[in-house]
């Protein structure tokens, strides 16, 4: 006879409160905003300034 696993009988089966989803998603959106802002300031802005300076330099070289 196969023995029953008692660990399977102690599995909880409760409903997750709906409000929890709103709280999680609100925090996730905040984190995403923080990540995007960090990316903008530390990667995208420096990269665009670098490109701008390079373009200006190239134009100056062409004129000369």
């Amino acid at each position, binding site marked *: 006879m196969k*023995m*029953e*696993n*008692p*660990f*399977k*009988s*102690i*599995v*909880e*089966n*409760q*409903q*997750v*409160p709906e409000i*929890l*989803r709103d*709280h*999680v*998603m609100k*925090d*996730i*959106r905040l*984190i*995403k905003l923080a*990540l*995007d802002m960090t990316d903008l300031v530390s990667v995208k802005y420096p990269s665009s300034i670098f490109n701008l300076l390079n373009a200006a330099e190239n134009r100056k070289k062409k004129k000369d």
Partner: protein
Amino acid sequence: MAIQKSFKTISDEELIQGITQSNDTHLFGILYDRYASVVYNKCLGFIGSKEEAQDLTHDIFVKLFVKLKTFKGDAKFSTWMFAFTYNHCVNYLQREVKGKKNTFSVDENYGEVKEDEVSDALIFEMKAEKLNRSLQLISPPERAILLLKYQDDLSIKDIATLYSIGESAVKMRLNRAKSNLIEQYKNV
């Protein structure tokens, strides 16, 4: 509508790839809907309090959004998620215990535990209610490894991969956890 439907049917792995590539919060919402119930009930079973289980579920999903990149696909996502949940619960309990300047008595008794192989039959003979109470009395890391093995049906190999330890180390930890569980079960 068609796009929304396709998101609902894609695999966990594809979903995770989408989230990690663009930090898409909508896709993360789908992942939340798939796993919220499992995570909440695992926390509830581990901690035993609804309020704490809700807080832990919240924290686990927020942490998951940041840590999702660390999922390498070595194991199934659901398996990885179980371990991620238990790790968070274990850390939470250990932090709480440290705050109270207390230690788990089971850790102190490690040296006394017999290293004989503990048969699974002894575990399967246990009564569910008594087992539940005994599980609350053993240390959180031991509780986690027992739940991974006997409730979530993970193999020794899966557990070894998740914990980044050898299979013999997993067997040893499982054996110790079973010994302690049986010891607590006798006293409950």
